[in-house]
């Protein structure tokens, strides 16, 4: 797990995961999109609390390695000001078979998004800007079920 302030280079990261015993490789990248919930987005600003983002990210990778037989797994998250089309987060997983690679890659990005102390501020075309809420809060609204998700995260930690 790494944080970086310079552009993520997926090809270099992929290179590090090459493994003669791996038959399946799955990579996820989060790209800065030009639109969110109807607003035109110009750029995003990511803030992270690095010491804990790294330890929590390592914990997530360890959980994935424990849950599936993986050969390689890694994650890099960028911070600072990002323009449309830039890569904010990269996850790469190599495993003997694709089932595990897909499942673990999905698990890692899902957990990274809700557990790492990372925040993003969207800067809109109309001059406004705003901190983006927890993805699940936004998706589910502030339901009792969702509060339970947060409570569960807290307990797991």
């Amino acid at each position, binding site marked *: 797990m790494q944080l970086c302030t310079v552009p993520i280079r997926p090809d270099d990261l992929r290179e590090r995961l090459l493994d003669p015993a791996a038959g399946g490789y799955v990579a996820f990248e989060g790209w800065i999109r030009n639109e969110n919930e109807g607003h035109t987005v110009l750029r995003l600003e990511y803030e992270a609390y690095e010491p804990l983002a790294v330890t929590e990210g390592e914990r997530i990778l360890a959980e994935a390695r424990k849950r599936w037989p993986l050969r390689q797994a890694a994650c890099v998250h960028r911070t600072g000001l990002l323009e449309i089309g830039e890569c904010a987060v990269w996850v790469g997983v190599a495993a003997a078979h694709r089932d595990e690679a897909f499942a673990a890659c999905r698990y890692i990005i899902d957990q990274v*998004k809700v557990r790492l102390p990372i925040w993003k501020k969207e800067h809109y075309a109309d001059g406004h800007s705003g901190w983006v809420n*927890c993805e699940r809060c936004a998706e589910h609204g502030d339901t009792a079920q969702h509060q339970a998700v947060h409570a569960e995260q*807290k307990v797991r*930690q």
Partner: protein
Amino acid sequence: MSKNITVRYFAAFREHAGTGEETLAMSVATARDVFDKLRDRHGSSEPLGHCKVAINDELADWDTTVNDGDTVLLFPPVAGG
């Protein structure tokens, strides 16, 4: 009993507080007490259930006891990726 607690704010919380860090003398037992006191102080409306807390760089439960001299990190809802 009053404790000296250093509080660090991130993202929206930092903007609300107008500062990234402050050290306060507070009568608090747990991380939850710290959160409640500072919500009153800075007028944030974020429900605690969406936030996280770390004490001295370790993620913690809201019921964790805070001690004199601790650094409490208050994390608003995270949104990585």
